């Protein structure tokens, strides 16, 4: 089943001539992703990894891309996303960090109007082993399997995916939501997809302190999800009111604490791992 992307998904990279854009385009190509073109204003006519580079997204549309990876400086992200949406791109992955959340809100709500999905900002993207990777997850940690992972964190995702793969299991889909206050998708939206995907048998949620994404996911799981779900929550040790890198990881007003999330998951029958590496044990 198609979960946001599949092996036919064609991808462009906005900001392909930048350091990050160029590197990760190469990695995606190695993974097998059908990257078809790059876009870099003023750089039209160049080639990157043998791919054509265009000045505008609309010039790339004859190659029928469905998805874009946006890797441009934060102040330019909103325009790049609007450009992709205007051209009819349906999956907008934003690699860039430090995107103002008001911009992220504008992008998200306008994407919804146009029936498009936003991944990120400030997340590692989506990986479907054997099919398609859009984003920056390391290629080597995956094995095709039946565990789906959704995560609010980047490196922690790799840690957990690696542990799953090392344990002999494998992944159907791994989605990084992004660590910002206004991510393009939340756990519930991802759970809907995983729940409907016949290739997914077990689900891992990697949450962190701040917000009530996990608490609401727990409610949803209780009602709708029959598949096995396990979780990890980062930030148990974070002192209240301190920022821990992600704007997402602020504990305020007693909401969104690790305790509240762990309790909500517990009530929904979701085992919560003490350590990231314990996830495979819980999945068995």
């Amino acid at each position, binding site marked *: 089943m198609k979960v946001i992307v599949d092996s036919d998904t064609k991808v462009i990279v906005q900001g392909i001539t930048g350091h990050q854009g160029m590197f990760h385009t190469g990695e995606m190509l190695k993974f097998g992703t059908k990257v078809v073109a790059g876009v870099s204003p003023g750089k039209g006519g160049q080639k990157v990894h043998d791919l054509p580079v265009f000045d505008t997204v609309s010039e790339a549309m004859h190659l029928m891309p469905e998805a874009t990876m946006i890797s441009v400086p934060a102040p330019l992200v909103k325009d790049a996303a609007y450009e992709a949406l205007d051209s009819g791109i349906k999956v907008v992955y934003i690699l860039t960090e430090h995107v103002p959340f008001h911009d992220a809100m504008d992008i998200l*709500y306008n994407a919804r109007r146009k029936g498009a999905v936003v991944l990120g900002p400030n997340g590692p993207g989506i990986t479907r082993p054997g099919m398609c990777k859009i984003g920056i997850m*390391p290629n080597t940690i995956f094995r095709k399997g039946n565990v789906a992972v959704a995560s609010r964190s*980047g490196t922690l995702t*790799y840690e957990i995916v690696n542990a799953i793969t090392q344990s002999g299991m494998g992944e159907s889909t791994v989605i990084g939501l992004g660590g910002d206050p*206004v991510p393009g998708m939340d756990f519930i939206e991802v759970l809907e997809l995983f729940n409907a995907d016949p290739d997914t048998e077990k689900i891992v949620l990697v949450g962190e302190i701040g917000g009530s994404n996990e608490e609401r996911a727990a409610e949803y799981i209780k009602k709708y999800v029959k598949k096995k779900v396990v979780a990890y929550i980062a930030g148990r*040790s974070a002192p209240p009111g301190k920022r*821990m890198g992600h704007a997402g990881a602020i504990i305020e007003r007693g909401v969104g604490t690790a305790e509240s999330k762990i309790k909500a998951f517990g009530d929904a029958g979701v085992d919560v791992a003490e350590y990231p590496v314990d996830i495979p044990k819980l999945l068995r």
Partner: protein
Amino acid sequence: MNLYEYSGKEIFRKFQIPVPDGYVITSAAELKPYTSPVVVKSQVLIGGRGKSGGIKFAKDQASLDQAVKDLMGSKVRGFTVNKLLIEQMLDIKKEFYLSITLNRSERKPMLICSASGGVEIETVPEEQIFRKSIDPITGYSDFIGREAAKFMKFDENLSKQLRSILSKLYDVFVHYDCELVEINPLVMNGDGRLIAADAKVIIDSDSTYRHPEFPKDDPERTPLELEAQSKGYAFVELDGIIGVIANGAGLTMATLDALLLHKGKPRNFLDLGGTDSTDIVVEAFDLVLKAKPRAILVNIFGGVTKCDTVASGIVEAKKKFGISQHIVVRLSGVRENEGREILKQNGIDAFSEMMPAVEKVVSLAGGA
């Protein structure tokens, strides 16, 4: 980024939200002669100033002079007072609460109002609080204010004033990329006018480049945190003894959590981020060393940040700073073997798994 009350009120004034007449001083010399009753308000970025004695009232020249003398340079809940806001005293008939903030669950702005203002909103009973999500595309529209006014049982005169203020407050929220705009209390003055007696404005720290007019002044951070911030690191000081360097906020948090569960006490949070340069690593060590930890844990899952780069950085830092503390390293992911080789040549063993590294550093650091 938190703005001081006087900055918030300058913004309010610009957007025509009524605020009391007033001016800011940074020394007693700037004080204007007394003409009418005033409030002297310490400009510190913390709530509860009133209870902590940071706000004084003056009804004549002598008491004004005394208030300024008492407050300027004093400490309010640990923060030094360098600026005072001298403001016309209001004839407070009633106090209300207004704010607009991001509702992270709905990913929408949310308006919060209460007829019970002047106290912390967390202490107000739920049934006295009006909450309304605002569609970020249509933004504030008058009906939202009508619903709020109805909830607060305002008459048409107050309702009109409230709606005007809310409309402008939403403009401030959007224009300044705010996380929060809060008026607490919004005061009904003796003359029936609604006036913002306080102003709390927090600008999204990712948006400050669009608002260069405000100084990046964050007294809630320690000097070391400010230094780290200026260098671009996500860094938080904690009260333990184990220095931590990791990559990614989630993994860094997970590292702290794992230390804690093993009775290890982290001295700091430091997220290397996704850059791939030895200098970044060396500088990170510099920061962590300034916090004087008993041992240092480096926990890297290589992706954008490659393991060999980190390894080279560790070696360089060790030489440069002559580090005496134990350094425990965990390397996994992209260029893991290359990284481990570099460390080995320099006499450092690196773990490939996180948990053994955590256990090792806790045992090396010893009890607190």
